[in-house]
């Protein structure tokens, strides 16, 4: 019964969209109806799935690197107060650069192919991970800090047994933001360098005014993004089942 409202919402939205294209007589070149999009997909499913795979590969590779780098940077920054104070302003300044604007430059620096795309994904999603992890690592409650001090716990024990697990719910908040940004980063990189991936499909279909094909690519992107997001959510429920209980 809990699944009924979300399903009804999704079906209702698609139905409304379809009805609008019929009632107002909108031409498929401006806004294709759902059947046009399905037809565009069925015309060349192999090609579209292959490009989805390319985008997925760049997204996952970039996200993976960003998670590893982001966690490492956050751990290093919070380990030494002086390092944090030296590097945090640089990070904040870097974060305020619109990473999307770097996409054409990355092609100049790294050439065509997957590398500049993966780098853009890393750049765009590493900051939320760093910031969320740092917030988590510095939010250990005072009474837990006093507990570990009164037990004469070593710095390492305090880190591993208290600070790190305490930070995990906030780490996952960062990961959920980052995974959606990762897909955006991959698509932006593909649009500026349309040699492959769903972003490339969108650019090429725009040139030939094949709007249904562009919508098919956008739909696949939405599915991709949603699936990746819920994979992270599933991992969160598996690793920190207690987070929801104490937040509520």
């Amino acid at each position, binding site marked *: 019964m809990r699944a009924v409202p979300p399903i009804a919402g999704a079906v209702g939205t698609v139905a409304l969209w379809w009805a609008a294209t019929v009632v107002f007589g909108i031409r498929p070149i401006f806004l294709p109806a759902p059947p046009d999009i399905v037809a565009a997909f069925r015309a060349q499913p192999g090609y579209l799935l292959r490009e989805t795979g390319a985008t997925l590969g760049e997204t996952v590779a970039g996200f993976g690197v960003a998670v590893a780098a982001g966690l490492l940077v956050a751990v290093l920054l919070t380990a030494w107060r002086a390092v944090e104070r030296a590097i945090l302003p640089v990070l904040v300044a870097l974060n305020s650069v619109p990473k999307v604007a770097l996409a054409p430059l990355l092609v100049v620096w790294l050439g065509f192919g997957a590398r500049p795309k993966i780098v853009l994904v890393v750049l765009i999603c590493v900051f939320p991970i760093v910031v969320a992890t740092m917030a988590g690592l510095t939010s250990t*409650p005072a*009474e*837990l800090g*006093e*507990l*570990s*001090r*009164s*037990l*004469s*716990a070593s710095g390492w*024990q305090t880190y591993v*047994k*208290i600070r790190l*697990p305490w930070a*995990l719910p906030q780490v996952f908040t960062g990961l959920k933001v980052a995974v959606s940004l990762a897909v955006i980063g991959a698509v932006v990189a593909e649009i500026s360098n349309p040699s492959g991936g769903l972003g490339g499909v969108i650019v090429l279909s725009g040139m030939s005014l094949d709007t249904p094909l562009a919508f098919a690519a956008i739909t696949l992107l939405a599915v991709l993004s949603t699936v990746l997001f819920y994979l992270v959510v599933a991992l969160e429920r598996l690793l*920190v089942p*207690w987070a929801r*209980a*104490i937040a509520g």
Partner: protein
Amino acid sequence: MIDLDRVSRSFGTRDGTLAALRDIDLRIAENQFVAVIGRSGCGKSTLLRLMAGLLAPTGGTVTIDGTPVHEPRRDVVLMHQLPALLPWRTVLGNVMLPVEIRRLPRAEYRARAVELLDAVGLAGFHQRHPYELSGGMQQRVALCRALIQRPRVLLMDEPFSALDALTREELAAQLQEMHMSAPATTVFVTHSIPEAVLLADRVVVLSARPGRVRRVLDVGIPRPRSFGHNAHVADVAGCVAELHDLLLRD
């Protein structure tokens, strides 16, 4: 056992220094149960943190068994107002935390943890997580965690003050039983006069800030004590009234 010799502690604030405690002289004998009461902000918690080695005095000395206290000691345990449990650990895992951190033999202490949890009425809850328990049960887990290392000194900072009145009485009765069967030197900070009279051999009344020892009252009522249904009801009431007077005149 615990000796406080002209102990003072002040804190630097934006408006100059604030004296929390001044010239506290106190001698606590082995296995004695001492309650400390006083108004909010009179330095009761500071006093405990000085004895726990979490704070250094700005004047005077704190010694335990003749050794000055400079850092947390293995045989001294501090219990907070909040249970301060780790939400990702089970009840048993929380009780075992000090054993793991101090690298004590696990098998032996595991048996003790089970014994303690059973003694406070948490027999069926070893594998539950803290968020599945009520506030009173969480504080019982914290009590077991404090007792697991067989501390010689137990410092308790308003341990029951976040609980409802009935749970509070239950836990106080349980603490009294545990103190009778396995005594440890206990310093128990509280706001509650009846709680102090129920539990303590001696009650230390602190004056308002800066905290000084205003009076030390010996409670000679035989144990087990209770609030309602024993022969010594009149004695308890008399003691409570005397303390009331002392605190209200402050």
